[in-house]
């Protein structure tokens, strides 16, 4: 079933606040074979927030995660993520088009800290593969 075109422009509620700890950063870093000795998180760490926001969007729209393949991801950082940050992500659907029976969903998410300051802006293209 194609994704509803009326979604374009829709902003979903912010994700539940996520408390960034050194342990969570270390877990993420070591999962990619890197080491972590304190300081800022690896550059792709904000995906944890963006993915949480995407999951909420997919659940709200009843889209199966297993039909989603990641097409594109870009991050623009205002500052690094550090332990002690309390982060939320807010996702907006930016664009939607159909190619070959697949939905190409453009999203943008803002990751903000506990003071509401922007930490990272990220855009993602999600390819929703049609059921065979």
């Amino acid at each position, binding site marked *: 079933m194609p994704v509803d075109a009326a979604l374009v422009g829709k902003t979903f509620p912010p994700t539940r606040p996520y408390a960034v700890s050194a342990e969570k950063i270390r877990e993420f870093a070591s999962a990619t*074979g890197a080491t972590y000795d304190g300081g800022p998180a690896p*550059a792709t760490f904000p995906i944890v927030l963006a993915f949480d926001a995407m999951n909420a969007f997919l659940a709200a729209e009843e889209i199966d995660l*297993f039909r989603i*393949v990641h097409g594109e991801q870009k991050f623009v*950082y205002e500052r690094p993520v550090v332990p002690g940050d309390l982060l939320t992500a807010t996702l907006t659907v930016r664009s939607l088009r159909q190619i070959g029976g697949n939905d190409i969903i453009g999203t943008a998410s803002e990751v903000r800290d506990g003071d509401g300051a922007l930490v990272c802006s990220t855009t993602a293209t999600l390819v929703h593969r049609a059921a065979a």
Partner: protein
Amino acid sequence: MSALSAGDTLAPQEYAVTRADLVRYAGASGDFNPIHWSDRVATSVGLPGVIAHGMFTMALAARAVASWTDGAEVLELGCKFTNPVVVPDDDTGVVVRVAGTVKSVEDGRAAIALEVTCCGAKVLGMPKAVVRA
């Protein structure tokens, strides 16, 4: 960080990726999409088999950037996911290779063009990082 100059070729980094790595990454990132651990589900949606999370591959690219720049602050990072990294169900996995070239250094920003390949094929499209120089 070590000084970067436009035109510098950065030493390619190689990282092995196994199914166990994907399981760990799923747990750490919260991305439990079964296309990253189930051959049955992956092939049911037309994929050649279990594939690495695109963000796992991008994290390896970020790891290479961190090693080249001694952990310089990353200002921008982005790519397209053009070809899947198919991870076999064995103990060896596959190797992802990350190469980089410094494109420009100006206004305190160094732009690095990346080339990320697996089995000789480019897996990321236009991968690029900008770090504070």
